[in-house]
């Protein structure tokens, strides 16, 4: 079996639970620790991708450029990567990141809107980057239709296409069905990736299932640091891979130490499965909505879970954070 490619998202998805407030010193310290612990790729950006800093998604403590500056020079093994959402960031942002040493990028769209990424996938390939297509909220599309979206990204030039369970709502069979649908329709040379959220406590299990059915690029983050109940916790995933005797490049103990000593103390809101984060997975809501919904609930005297359920009922997708206050205002009318 091909060694899985482990991509860390502590410094991108992990921005969400702390409202994008890493300092550049923290980012550098963590990037170096992750590199020395052997992860294959380190993703750095605002939680909503490059240029995500905004009233809608929250302003960062630093700009993307401050976070990225001087990182690539420090890496000895890991590839420096980033992420963009078409409709938020543009090719101009990506070119700037490329000039700062970013070698790989994920272009993220909602699971039915792959064609809005063609411009950026082609553009990133032209820049000579490794490119992943990132189909978010994968539970909102059937395996067959999701695979057709993956095909659009592949045809645009993506080296890898991801099943991205942004709501942490997929069950194990749902993951298996989607990966198998990808395998059926994509070229053998196109890699398949998996990005999980832990809202139903399935982050690691779903990542393993995806790998067993053909996914070769696995996302994870230290302590699970990520939106909602977090991502697949990296140190746990590596421990499981060790037990399964699957070879990889990571050092478990270094990851455990960095997770516990550096990352966990940063969490102002615990990253865990609790009533609110479970509600994200149960209702199928974009995990990044969590903190925005908790703030709106507090401000307008509502129950977070009720807001999340209403967002799901209205079919809100990633990027519609502005609609959380709008929904709350409708609810108190």
């Amino acid at each position, binding site marked *: 079996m091909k060694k899985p490619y482990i991509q860390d998202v502590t410094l991108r998805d992990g921005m969400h639970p702390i409202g994008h407030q890493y300092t550049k010193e923290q980012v550098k310290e963590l990037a170096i620790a992750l590199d020395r612990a052997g992860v294959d790729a380190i993703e750095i950006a605002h939680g909503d991708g490059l240029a995500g800093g905004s009233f809608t998604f929250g302003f960062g403590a630093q700009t993307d450029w401050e976070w990225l500056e001087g990182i690539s020079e420090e890496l000895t093994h890991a590839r420096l990567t980033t992420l963009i959402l078409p409709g938020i960031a543009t090719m*101009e942002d990506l070119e700037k990141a490329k000039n700062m040493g970013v070698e790989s990028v994920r272009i993220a769209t909602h699971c039915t809107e792959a*064609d*809005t990424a063609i411009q950026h996938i082609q553009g990133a390939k032209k820049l000579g980057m490794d490119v992943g297509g990132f189909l978010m909220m994968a539970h909102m599309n059937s395996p067959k239709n999701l695979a057709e979206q993956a095909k659009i990204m592949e045809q645009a030039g993506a080296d890898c296409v991801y099943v991205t369970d942004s709501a942490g709502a997929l069950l194990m069979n749902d993951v298996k069905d989607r990966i198998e649908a990808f395998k059926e329709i994509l070229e053998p040379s196109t890699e398949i990736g998996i990005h999980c959220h832990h809202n139903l406590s399935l982050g690691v299990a779903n990542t393993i299932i995806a790998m067993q059915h053909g996914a070769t690029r696995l996302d994870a983050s230290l302590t699970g640091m990520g939106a909602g109940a977090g991502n697949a916790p990296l140190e746990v995933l590596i421990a499981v891979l060790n037990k399964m005797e699957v070879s990889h490049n990571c050092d478990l103990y270094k990851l455990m130490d960095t997770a516990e000593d550096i990352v966990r103390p940063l969490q102002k809101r615990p990253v865990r499965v609790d009533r609110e984060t479970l509600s994200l997975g149960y209702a199928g809501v974009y995990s990044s909505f969590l903190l925005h919904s908790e703030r709106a609930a507090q401000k307008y005297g509502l129950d977070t879970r009720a807001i999340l359920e209403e967002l799901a009922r*209205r079919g809100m997708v990633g990027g519609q954070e*502005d*609609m959380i206050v709008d929904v709350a205002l409708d609810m108190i009318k």
Partner: protein
Amino acid sequence: MKTKVAIIGSGNIGTDLLIKILRYSETLEVAAMVGIDPKSDGLARAARMDVPTCHTGVDGLLEMPEWNDIKIVFDATSAKAHLYNWEKIRQFSDKRMIDLTPASVGPYLVPAVNFSDHMEALNVNMVTCGGQATIPIVAAISDVVKVHYGEIVASIASKSAGPGTRANIDEFTETTSRGIEKIGKAEKGKAIIILNPAEPPLVMRDTVFTLSEMGDKEAIRKSIRAKVELVQEYVPGYKLHQEILFDEIPASNPVLIQGLGYRHGLKTSVYLKITGAGHYLPEYAGNLDIMTSAARATAERLVKSIQS
């Protein structure tokens, strides 16, 4: 006598504009509907409504017997195609171009904000659907206080985004951001567009956030409401969906705006809903409606200003 116009582009936007002019305009007459796909629904509709059509693009338009009498050309193709089309059309100094693509060749025009600035321009650009919806609000706030930053989120139904929009998302964000700065008068503009595939399709929503100097909230409210009424004159489905919200961002806890630096002051949040008139696409497609309504209003005002 009605002024003769041509529409280049037989997709969603061109066809919706065709219907609006045919049904309601007292001063405009569509003398040519131009596409590049002879099988397109837009051209078929035009033919059924006895509008002369041509399926060989702008080159074909110049060969049409109607061409001489046409005074206004609407371009509803794509930013790239517009550059080609304009190269051809600009040779004719008696024609005006109203550009509905995000090509940004001519000055930006939002009827409720700056029509009178560009009555003489040979080519005017209608920014984007999101720009038409949100720039009036930013401009209304700028009329009262200095706006440091204007951010807008346009959420549109997936079904209302045609292939041109989908292939050119960057042009949307860049053109809208520049429009927020140039016409909205924000020091820095930012635009976000979201496509939502929900069924039944969701009505277009636009949210405007500005960060300005502290100012008289009641004056800001009044200015926004007055501007909404101005837009409603040509887009009846344009509405404030919530009360206007204010939050103070203190100097002790400023926000870091990429490309601008640290800023504090008054945050104003405006939630808009744009229900379409249901001409070519159903009512959810407010994005289509506001674009074509703004283009039609521009042409009609142009005719009026030329005649007087």
